[in-house]
């Protein structure tokens, strides 16, 4: 089913005009309210009235995660606090989180785009949807929640963790839709079997999975495991959260909600716009956001865009699944992790940052995170008690900064492999 056919199947020229109108409004909005953008536009000699068409998007300045950090926490908001009804936060590259705000209308639009996506996957008001994304500052849980309510489905806000309870909810409350990270879906599927239950004993029929990269092979695996049809949902909190784009039954890429978010693909080195079909960095401009619109935000996700009309009838541009990035961000159990966050924690604890290595793996479909820290003269002890206290302190600080737990291992100096004198920071043993 198509929830908003007039938009989702719109004539491309009509969409172009709508985008142009909304882009002009957004440019005016940020110019008038955000000193950061006003300065950037002035540097480029752009007055708000100059931008009349979406074709001029390429002339506008980029926004990066570093810009969000520099304007922490509310420097990019265009509205006073009284109009902000929600704040979400995700991982920043260092100690400070990336903060986003929403007006009441932003929340409504967010619910609408998620509802559009859920409908695309076949969810309707007769469904019961178990939302096993984290609820909280992370946008996954609440984003799906509002969208599912908008559709009129019955929501089970089960959040993450406690697999036993998840399975109990799923079976006892007759969940028909599961929304979570794809790796957690696979894990739940195997836990179900281990509990002696067959997937046919559940009512599950649809999976809406996102927040981490996954392949088509993984999709087939999860579909077989849970006896469902699985769909990819894409989003990032900076743009709105989940619902920026969503896969339809054709599985030929995610349809981007272009009436709210304009995608571009740029060369991550030269920042030149690349034509449709070429692999590059995905950039979004939000054109309806009120609280915190972003101009040409560099997502660091690498993908391609396809403009051809889809067999499902939708004309919205499709983006390929994002499987790699142009920066060093890791997605572990759906949580964004930057190696620099680990470094910042260690720096804070000992004067000279010790050499460390992040090792990511996957066991029983769940991501594992191990951080090896070389002991050095700044934190050396021949007492096990003291070494363990150091290890526990690192463990505690890493968990509170990253938002996920890690196994901390103390290792001998120089045991971490170096290339050209620099320790290799990240080893990702997961295969996609």
């Amino acid at each position, binding site marked *: 089913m198509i929830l908003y056919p007039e938009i989702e199947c719109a004539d491309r020229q009509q969409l172009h005009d709508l985008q142009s109108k909304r882009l002009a409004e957004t440019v005016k909005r940020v110019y008038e309210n955000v000193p950061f953008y006003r300065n950037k536009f002035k540097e480029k000699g752009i007055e708000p009235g100059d931008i009349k068409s979406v074709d001029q998007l390429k002339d506008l300045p980029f926004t990066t995660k570093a810009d969000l950090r520099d304007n922490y926490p509310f420097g990019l908001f265009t509205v006073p606090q009284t109009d902000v009804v929600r704040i979400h936060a995700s991982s920043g590259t260092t100690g400070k989180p990336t903060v986003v705000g929403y007006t009441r209308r932003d929340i409504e639009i967010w619910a609408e785009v998620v509802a559009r996506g859920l409908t695309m996957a076949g969810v309707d008001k007769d469904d019961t949807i178990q939302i096993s994304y984290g609820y909280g500052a992370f946008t996954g849980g609440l984003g799906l929640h509002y969208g599912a309510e908008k559709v009129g489905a019955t929501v089970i806000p089960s959040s993450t963790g406690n697999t036993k309870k998840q399975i109990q909810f799923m079976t006892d409350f007759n969940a028909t839709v599961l929304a979570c990270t794809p790796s957690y879906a696979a894990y739940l599927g195997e836990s179900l079997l281990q509990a002696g239950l067959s997937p046919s004993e559940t009512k599950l029929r649809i999976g809406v999975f996102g927040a981490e990269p996954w392949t088509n092979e993984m999709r087939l695996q999860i579909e077989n495991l849970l006896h469902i049809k699985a769909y990819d949902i894409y989003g990032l909190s900076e743009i709105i959260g989940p619902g920026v784009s969503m896969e339809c039954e054709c599985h030929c890429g995610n349809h981007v909600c272009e009436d709210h978010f304009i995608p571009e693909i740029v060369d991550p080195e030269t920042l030149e716009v690349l034509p449709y079909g070429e692999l590059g960095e995905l950039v979004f401009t939000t054109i309806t956001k009120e609280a915190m619109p972003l101009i040409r935000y560099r997502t660091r996700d690498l993908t391609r865009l396809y403009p051809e009309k889809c067999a499902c009838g939708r004309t919205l541009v499709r983006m390929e699944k994002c499987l790699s990035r142009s920066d060093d961000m890791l997605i572990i159990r759906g949580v964004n992790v930057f190696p620099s966050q680990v470094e910042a924690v260690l720096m804070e604890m000992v004067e000279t940052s010790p050499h460390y290595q992040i090792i990511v793996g996957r066991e029983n479909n769940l991501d594992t995170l191990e951080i090896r820290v070389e002991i050095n003269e700044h934190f*050396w002890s*021949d*007492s096990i008690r003291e*070494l363990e206290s150091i290890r526990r302190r690192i463990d505690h600080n890493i968990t509170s900064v990253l938002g996920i737990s890690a196994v901390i291992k103390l*290792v*001998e100096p120089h045991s971490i492999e170096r290339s050209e004198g620099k320790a290799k920071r990240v080893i990702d043993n997961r295969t996609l």
Partner: protein
Amino acid sequence: MIIKQLSVFLEDKSGRLTELTRILAENDINITALSLAETADYGIVRMVVGRPDLAKEVLEDAGFSVGLTDVVCLRMPDKPGGLYSALRILAENNVNIDYMYAFSNNGVALAVIRAANIDQVIDVLQQNKMQLISQSEIYQI
């Protein structure tokens, strides 16, 4: 009467302790006492050796993480109550022991003792006529 104990951090991987003893052997350094404390991921090997400064240097050159820790080495009669009489004195003087390791043979028992305030340990034991071994004696053992 302070003895410099060699403490070495060892990752839990096979061959590390062998490598350590090989380096000491090649440098003609004798080990008088050794204890190995382990956790799930790593261990600390503590040793009383003939030439601790040289041992530290050659082990560090080989990439080991080495520290020298002040300990005392107590000589006791090898008979029931030998250790008790020493520990009772320490307890009565409120000295907490961080760790120790001991061995006895042929009528002589030796205990290596580590405490936060090592000077206090020495004072208390000597005042009570306990026999401590000096670094030079160790070298001769």
